[in-house]
């Protein structure tokens, strides 16, 4: 709460971005307290990690301070916010209290997920089975959302080639400590990303988080060794192709299950044994999610870093 107010009051955008990171980390901690480990993991990786980096990259293109806004507009905005806030509070007065086992949210579809998913899908992490199978179509949609965002930024910034801006070639290579630490960290981050990617069935994790972690390894590399070296490892065109292929992989798994006689995204028909099929299907689509998320994040970073204003 205090961080949020501080963010709103600050004129220094750089500090505001940093506070945003803290805010995300705090909410992640809150989610852990509420036993939602998967959500917490995502919030930590996305909110505190990659979002902060991307916002900083965006700042590098614009300015660090905010232009003053006339007082009058403040009042109108505050009014709308207060009305909305009061609305939310008014609405929650009748809400079942937190942790109430008789709340409708816990009685209708959730028991089915908790009790049947092991038998129907055969993986221990219920969140993953809800995400990737019961509501797999939503997840496909989310992946497309991320892809769309990347397309938007590429469309606006990344089409005109030219590497200038703040990540000049060479980056921070002259900082010895940074360089060595980065070299030490990179393999660990990549390994961790892969672990998160393929362990999502058993513990918290999955394609979204893994993709973000994977991308942050690349961005770290780009920051330290310069954009030219980063694009040498992963040329931007390849990154875009990977982003598109991730979505396609997910969607095609759905089409494949159509051809095998099931409904769209019904992984049960992929192999003889339905539970085994579910397992393979989830692995495949999670991989697709991971590909798209990682590639989209990296191409966002490229787009920001290599932007040169058009004449």
């Amino acid at each position, binding site marked *: 709460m205090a961080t949020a107010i501080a963010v709103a009051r600050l004129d220094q955008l750089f500090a505001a971005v940093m506070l945003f990171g803290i805010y995300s980390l705090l909410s992640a901690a809150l989610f852990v307290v509420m036993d939602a480990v998967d959500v917490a993991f995502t919030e930590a990786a996305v909110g505190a990690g990659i979002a902060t980096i991307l916002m900083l990259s965006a700042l590098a293109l614009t300015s660090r301070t905010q232009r003053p806004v006339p007082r009058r507009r403040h009042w109108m905005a505050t009014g709308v916010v207060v009305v909305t806030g009061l609305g*939310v509070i008014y609405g929650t*007065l009748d809400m079942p209290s937190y942790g109430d086992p008789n709340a409708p949210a816990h009685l209708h*579809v959730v028991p089915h997920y908790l009790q049947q998913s092991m038998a129907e899908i055969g993986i221990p992490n219920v969140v993953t089975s809800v995400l990737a199978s*019961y509501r797999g*179509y*939503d997840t496909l949609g989310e992946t497309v959302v991320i892809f769309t965002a990347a397309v*938007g930024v590429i469309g606006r910034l990344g089409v005109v080639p030219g590497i200038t801006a703040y990540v000049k070639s060479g980056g921070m290579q002259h900082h010895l400590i940074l360089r060595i630490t980065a070299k030490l960290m990179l393999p660990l981050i990549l390994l961790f990303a892969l672990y998160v990617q393929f362990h999502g069935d058993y513990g918290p994790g999955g394609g979204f988080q893994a993709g973000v972690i994977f991308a942050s390894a690349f961005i770290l590399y780009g920051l330290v060794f310069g954009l030219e070296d980063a694009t040498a490892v992963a040329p931007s065109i390849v990154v875009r192709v990977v*982003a598109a292929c991730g979505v396609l992989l997910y969607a095609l798994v759905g089409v494949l299950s159509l051809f095998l006689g099931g*409904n769209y995204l019904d992984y049960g028909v992929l192999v003889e044994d339905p539970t085994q099929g579910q397992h393979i299907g989830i692995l495949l689509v999670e991989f697709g999610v991971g590909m798209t998320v990682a590639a989209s994040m990296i191409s966002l970073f490229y787009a920001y870093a290599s932007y040169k204003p058009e004449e």
Partner: protein
Amino acid sequence: MPLLAGPVCLLLHHPRLSWGLATTASWIAFFIALTLLDQVLSNGTITYALGGWAAPWGIEYRIDEINAFVLLIVSGISAITLPFARTSIEYEINPRRIYILYTAWMLCLTGLLGITITGDVFNVFVFLEIASLSSYTLISLSRDPRSLTAAFRYLVMGTIGATFILIGIALLYIMTGTLNMMDLSQRIPAVADTRTVKMAFTFLIVGIGLKAALFPMHFWLPNAYAFAPSAVSALFAGTATKVAVYLLLRFFFTVFGPEFSFDVMQSDRVLLPLALVGVFAASTAAIVQSDVKRMLGYSSVAQIGYMVIGISLVSVLGVTAGILHLFNHALMKAALFVSLGCVVYRIGSTRLTDMAGVGRAMPWTMGAFVVGGLSLVGVPLTVGFISKWYLILAALEQQWWWLAVLVLVSSLLALIYIWRVVEFAYFKAPADPAREITEAPATLLIPTWLLILANVYFGIDTSLTVGVAERAAKLLMGTAS
């Protein structure tokens, strides 16, 4: 499915190829929509469980008369504006960005169709995000630097709208434990008397209202339409706000049920005056605009007002009029924006003063504009007349003759702003007589006239549109009893 075509467009990386693919995908989607509508009309509602999980656990598609009709509108408009887009887009945006535009176009279509077809409220939100993000992109791709500000304003307003919708959905889930629309409609009456459900209703309607550019939440729309590439304006005018109005119908009648929406929440008493004020304010604003695209943007706000008037009459006839106008307005606005696209292609601007005298130089283009404009006013033999006719019938059915008169008076306002364009195009001498202006190429004119002919055709033969709209309206009202 256009969903597949989107990423492939990015892979193709070639303007012509990606255009070809997008067009093919649109036409396929259009034919699928036609088949769906046909099936729904003969066999009733279709449901399809995604992932093979039955409804409340998994996500299902649920297609009845109303969304089959909206699917047809959306895919049809996209299918017919894409052939137009090829030439127009090549002229209007940076060639390096063309393949991005078609990628975003396909994603936008995916989003809009996804919102319409699904029977799950969270799925609606996901596809809403796809549609919104890609439409911000589509607007900002224009060469005009002002399109960036327009896209950003739309982004801010759109995000607020989406957040409101998400809060609404979350509150509903807390109270009912389900996200499926049919399931929700059965479970809401039990908890309808709680503040949480009432707040959920309010959040959802305000959020969707922002997306639909309901007066007084319309400020993003005119600029967004004015500065986007012409083909994109045509697509949005024909689809984006229509899908939002569809959502409004869906939530009012299916999810919450008319009893809750109108008797308990009394939303008709709020919506009707707002819509009326919106019609007049936006039409008046349209009259004073100096840019024709912006003028049409304001006119769209007014037309959405008519749809909401129809809905808030809460009668079969009123809802029929609303749905009819949804279809008809999509046709006429797309036609008008497309013909303006021809003007842009030749003279590079849609300012009234620049358009002086184009009527004689581009007779086919301006002819199309005039017919489209007449349709907007509501002259007999065009689709505009049909929707106005039903709207007035619905008003008279309630003995609200004053409403009928107001609708007629507001049509006169439309006549005034269309007449201003006609006056400049036909009766003013060209600003720069030395400049040679020729007729737009056939690749632009053919899609334009196809749309115009559709305007006239559905204005004469109304059996399809009125029939479907009536059945959809009965279905929506019937879910109440």
